[in-house]
């Protein structure tokens, strides 16, 4: 049973990845926080529906029993776990991580180190950091600007407060080191 679950879970994940790459190659959607969950949840659901249609019109002979649904359900958990990991990773893929850029820059030096003054990364410029993030937060409705002052919207307050409480429960300062 577990062999089928692993194969079925990997199949769902690989097909979802192919759909994702094809869509991104056709037009790269800006609203990825909406598109990615839709693709990674929608693709297995579509496979599930197509499978049922094929069984009902008798194109494939498959016994739709409890064991099959248990296999599909368990494989879906594996698929969702891998997909959620990928969705969490995605911003790291499209945005440039300053830490990774530092490592790459130091690796290019091949044994000769760099002083802090010599580490000049475009990714850390004001326009690529603070300005870009503030624009994202305003566009996504997390913060708003009024008379040059930034404040949290209702949804932004809920998100920030949740993370603040999460950190306090861990015994850490409410705000990370950034």
């Amino acid at each position: 049973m577990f062999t089928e679950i692993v194969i079925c879970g990997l199949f769902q994940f690989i097909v979802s990845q192919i759909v994702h790459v094809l869509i991104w190659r056709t037009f790269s959607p800006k609203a990825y926080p909406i598109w990615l969950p839709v693709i990674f949840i929608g693709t297995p659901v579509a496979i599930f529906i197509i499978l049922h249609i094929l069984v009902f019109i008798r194109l494939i002979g498959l016994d739709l029993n409890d064991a099959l649904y248990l296999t599909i359900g368990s494989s879906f958990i594996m698929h969702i776990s891998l997909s959620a990991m990928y969705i969490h990773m995605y911003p790291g893929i499209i945005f440039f991580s300053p830490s990774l850029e530092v490592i790459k820059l130091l690796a290019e030096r091949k044994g000769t180190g760099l002083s802090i003054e010599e580490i000049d990364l475009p990714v850390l410029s004001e326009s690529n950091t603070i300005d870009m993030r503030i624009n994202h937060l305003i566009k996504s409705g997390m913060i708003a600007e009024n008379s040059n002052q930034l404040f949290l919207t209702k949804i932004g307050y809920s998100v920030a407060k949740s993370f603040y409480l999460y950190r306090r429960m861990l015994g850490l300062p409410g705000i990370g080191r950034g």
Partner: protein
Amino acid sequence: MIAIVLLLSSPLYFIIQIILNWICKFINISISPFVGCFVSILLGSTAIVGYVLLLLSDNYMHNPLEVISCLIFTLFTLVGFAYMYFATFAISEVSLHMHIMLMILISKELSIEEIKKSYNKTYMLEERLTRLIEIGQICKRDNLYYVNSKLLLYGSRIFDFWKTLLGFPIKLQ
């Protein structure tokens, strides 16, 4: 049963991290937040894999293929949930978006200039260098920084490959 245990992995990591951080505070040991998170994930995952091995103990000889498949299923699912937990923690620790939101939450209102003053390029670079030293990826000798481990470097290569696959540039333009 195994699926339910796997679904409970993130709350388990969270509880272990709370206990670990409070123990470290109590016995006055300084631990990097990332190291604390990593150790919690490692301890939680070990406990879950151990429990799964215990559940499978009757099948080791009768059905080895099923046991291997079950372990692959457990590891794939666990890696996904562990990464999700790690990423959520990382958002709270390093995400610039979250840092700005938390700065505003604490001060109620903040101007862009005030954010730029307390979160400038030098501060960001110093914080990242300190963190990379803490996790052993770089080292500092005679005020010069060097690569110490290639783990993150290889990780960045995977990200570059995926950028290319999706049609994004690998260099910042």
